[in-house]
């Protein structure tokens, strides 16, 4: 197991690379979800403001 992590001495380079790969793609997967929540909240806010303007 220790051999596997050491990767013949190159462990640091390999594992950091794979970590960057996974982290950046994870961010790329999460970002649209957060964006969707934000946009839907904005639309609801706009609707609410339009309603309060209509009711006297």
């Amino acid at each position, binding site marked *: 197991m220790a051999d596997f992590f050491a990767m*013949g001495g190159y462990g640091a380079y390999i594992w950091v690379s794979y970590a960057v790969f996974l982290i950046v793609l994870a961010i790329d997967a999460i970002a649209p979800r957060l964006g969707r929540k934000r946009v839907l909240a904005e639309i609801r806010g706009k609707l609410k403001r339009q309603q309060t303007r209509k009711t006297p």
Partner: protein
Amino acid sequence: MNPFLLWFHKIGSPPTFYRIAGRIAPWCLGIGFVLGAIALYGGLVVAPRDYQQGDAYRIIFVHVPCAWMSLFAYGFMAVNAFIALVWRIKLSEILAMASAPIGAAFTFITLVTGSLWGKPMWGTYWTWDARLTSELVLLFLYFGVIGLYYAIDDRRKAARAAAFLALIGIVNVPIVHFSVNWWNTLHQGSTVRLLGPSKISGDMVWPLLTMALATHIWFFASVLARSRVGLLELDSGKDWARDIALADAPRDTVTAHG
């Protein structure tokens, strides 16, 4: 009207595309994830040590697919940019702008993993040779497109301006690809060929190709998810978007309109 044309026009309609993309994207994400896991296992555990580079070569299993994706994403963006500029199709504008951040992410991963591979192999984290420099230029082109898109207030005009910029920068994509043939570079030449035999051993090539497939499918999952958000934003005044926003509301807040 011929049914294919009808289907094509229907797909372009924002609420229809939103629905269809919403159904496809999770599948793409799942399949991409599974294929990626298989490829990672193949690359880290199954593939044998390289006789020249030892275990360091295993970075290839993330570096090369991401490099391929950085170019593919730009091509996808450019095709949609062209359609958006010529035929003004809203969906193409959205797809083009959605692929820019994903392409930038893949380019970033390519540069970082390449740099980490270069240190043990070439002795340096960076060199200004043709391939690395043109890949860096590609990253700046992506940033330019994203920056221009967010700098203009009118979303459709912003998309058109950014699409135009993307098309101007397309000339860099063949430069990145052929740089190792046209110039004397530190970066090695191509070993995996589309047509003809590849110079890489079979038990190393299958995790590479599997990861390439996984990243392609992941790209589509991401583009579909981002374009759903883009369509919501663009059509925020329309009924279909409002209905979705109200349906998504947390229980105790917004009441139905009326």
